[in-house]
């Protein structure tokens, strides 16, 4: 076992993922000790760093900014290649020139969440006080903390009011927190495939994932970075279990059925006989190459703790009282992680304060992950909603494309 000191480990590592957590290849801002972040757990975090990417140009009035908020295992590389995997941005179908979130017209900002592992401060970052990675000494954070940590970034960019905050899944939760905590700073809000609180079943799935990580002997009580090891198996199992919840029974059946993987007959072993097993193992192993296990614990915890109604006297509508934000809530028929009824709850709360809200349920058999995929109806909805809102805000149309 590698017993080198943490600095030695970090100095000697060539692991791109570990390096990205320390010094992102994207832009970042460091928020100094003079602007401490008071967390929901009542601890104070300072200094901290938010890594982010931008696309397009901010107009003179600074009125065309769209904040894209990412889901659990995503990062700031929404429309540019991932520095570790080299894969395209995770939402390139949605964000780019001529796309629904048109970077020829809008200025897109996408931060890595607090607690993440792609350069924003999180458990894989070095704690300035100890010189060691935070590990599980990192304070437990909430979705609201993630949002509050993004505020200095938006200030830094000189943006008073975002034209739009948009995101799916946990990104949608951040959208709701932005709309609730910083009402006057969000002109439109688009929470997609999300909920105002995390259900018991979803907490249960997260707990399975965390237990898988923590049961891996290489987790080392959260201090694996210093020991030069990684709970790869545990994190891979966590990812496999979670990945099932992002799909639908129908999509899995259609994609894999009971087909065997490169086999003529069953092997009568515990090898990955079935294609679906092989697929999940692949999902697990590629995930651990790019994600920090402790980050996974912290971010899933933040999602578990999310309950917007509880933050507002158990009445969800109170979260939106007095809002002038225009909302567009989107759900998918086959999403059983955040089913339509949970989006409808958000809509009902918005109706209760007579907010300006659109709500579409999109027919898809692709499950929760549909929001990341080629869904023409989703694109038409987002495009139409943003264009109408942009017109209302007096934004110039995108230049003619040839």
């Amino acid at each position, binding site marked *: 076992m590698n017993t080198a000191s943490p600095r030695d480990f970090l100095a000697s590592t060539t692991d791109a993922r570990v390096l990205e957590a320390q010094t992102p290849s994207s832009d970042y801002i460091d928020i100094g000790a003079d602007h401490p972040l008071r967390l929901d757990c009542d601890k104070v975090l300072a200094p901290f760093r938010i890594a982010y990417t931008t696309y397009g140009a901010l107009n003179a009035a600074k009125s065309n900014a769209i904040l894209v908020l990412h889901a659990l295992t995503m990062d700031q590389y929404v429309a540019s290649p991932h520095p570790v995997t080299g894969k395209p941005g995770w939402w390139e179908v949605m964000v780019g020139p001529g796309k629904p979130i048109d970077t020829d017209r809008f200025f897109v900002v996408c931060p890595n969440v607090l607690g993440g592992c792609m350069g924003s401060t999180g458990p894989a970052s070095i704690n300035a006080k100890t010189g060691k990675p935070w590990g599980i000494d990192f304070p437990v954070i909430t979705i609201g903390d993630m949002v509050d940590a993004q505020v200095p970034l938006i200030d830094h960019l000189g943006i008073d009011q975002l034209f739009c905050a948009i995101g799916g899944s946990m990104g949608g939760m951040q959208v709701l927190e932005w709309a609730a905590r910083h009402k006057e700073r969000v002109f439109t809000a688009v929470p997609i495939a999300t909920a105002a609180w995390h259900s018991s079943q979803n907490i249960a799935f997260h707990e399975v994932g965390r237990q898988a990580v923590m049961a891996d002997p290489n987790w080392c009580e959260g201090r694996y970075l210093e020991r030069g090891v990684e709970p790869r198996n545990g994190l891979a199992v966590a990812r496999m279990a979670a990945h099932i919840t992002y799909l639908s029974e129908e999509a899995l059946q259609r994609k894999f059925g009971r087909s065997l993987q490169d086999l003529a007959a069953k092997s009568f072993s515990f090898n990955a006989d079935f294609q679906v097993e092989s697929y999940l193992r692949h999902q697990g192993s590629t995930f651990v190459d790019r994600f920090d296990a402790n980050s996974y614990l912290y971010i899933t915890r933040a999602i578990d703790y999310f309950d917007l109604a509880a933050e507002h006297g158990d009445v969800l509508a109170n979260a939106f009282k007095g809002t002038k934000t225009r909302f567009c809530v989107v759900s998918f028929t086959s999403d059983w992680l955040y089913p339509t009824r949970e989006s409808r709850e958000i809509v009902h709360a918005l109706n209760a304060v007579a907010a300006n809200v659109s709500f579409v349920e999109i027919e898809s058999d692709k499950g929760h992950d549909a929001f990341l995929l080629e869904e023409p109806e989703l694109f038409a909805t987002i495009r139409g*909603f943003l264009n109408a809102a942009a017109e209302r805000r007096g934004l110039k149309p995108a230049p003619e494309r040839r």
Partner: protein
Amino acid sequence: MLAPATPQTTRVDHLLIAEMVAAGSRVLDVGCGDGALLQLLADTKNVDGRGIEVARERVNACVARGLSVIQGDADRDLVDYPDGAFDYAILSLTIQATRQPKMVLEQLLRIGRSAIVSFPNFGHWQVRSRLAFTGRMPVTENLPEAWFVSPNAHLCTIKDFADLCRVVNARVERAVAFNAWGQQLGTWLPLTVHNLMGEKAVFMLTRQWAH
């Protein structure tokens, strides 16, 4: 982009509603369909309009053209809105398709300072004669579906609707019937004539407070 409404396809009841609605007001269109009325009101009266529509594909089309519309239905989703949230709550050719028309009308009167309701008149002479002479549920231009596929669960006549207005304590501010050619029937004509000659009717209502 907000596409302008095309006048040649604009329904006569929509034109009348657009005439009734004050410019710049807040409007909820319950059962907004493809958003034609909301679009008309946005274009001609600059209203702050919202819609509710049950059919998913119509909702998505509305949102894609920039209208604020939610997927939902009148029976279930009106209860959420606060009292007096809108200047006008509109139910256009929809009340006959609701499960609980009385409750829906009460909700409209609660949510809107005024309620505007249009509906096909089942007392129209063509409907009556179809039923009388063929002995079958009438299928007309205005009521095109056979009974077994029709979404219409609670058809009524103009007289029936006037009765309902009394039951829910609504004041009829204005009532207009259109004949089969889309012409308004003279207001001097007795209710019985409206009920016989009107193919559809538009009522503008306000709540009569008990005290």
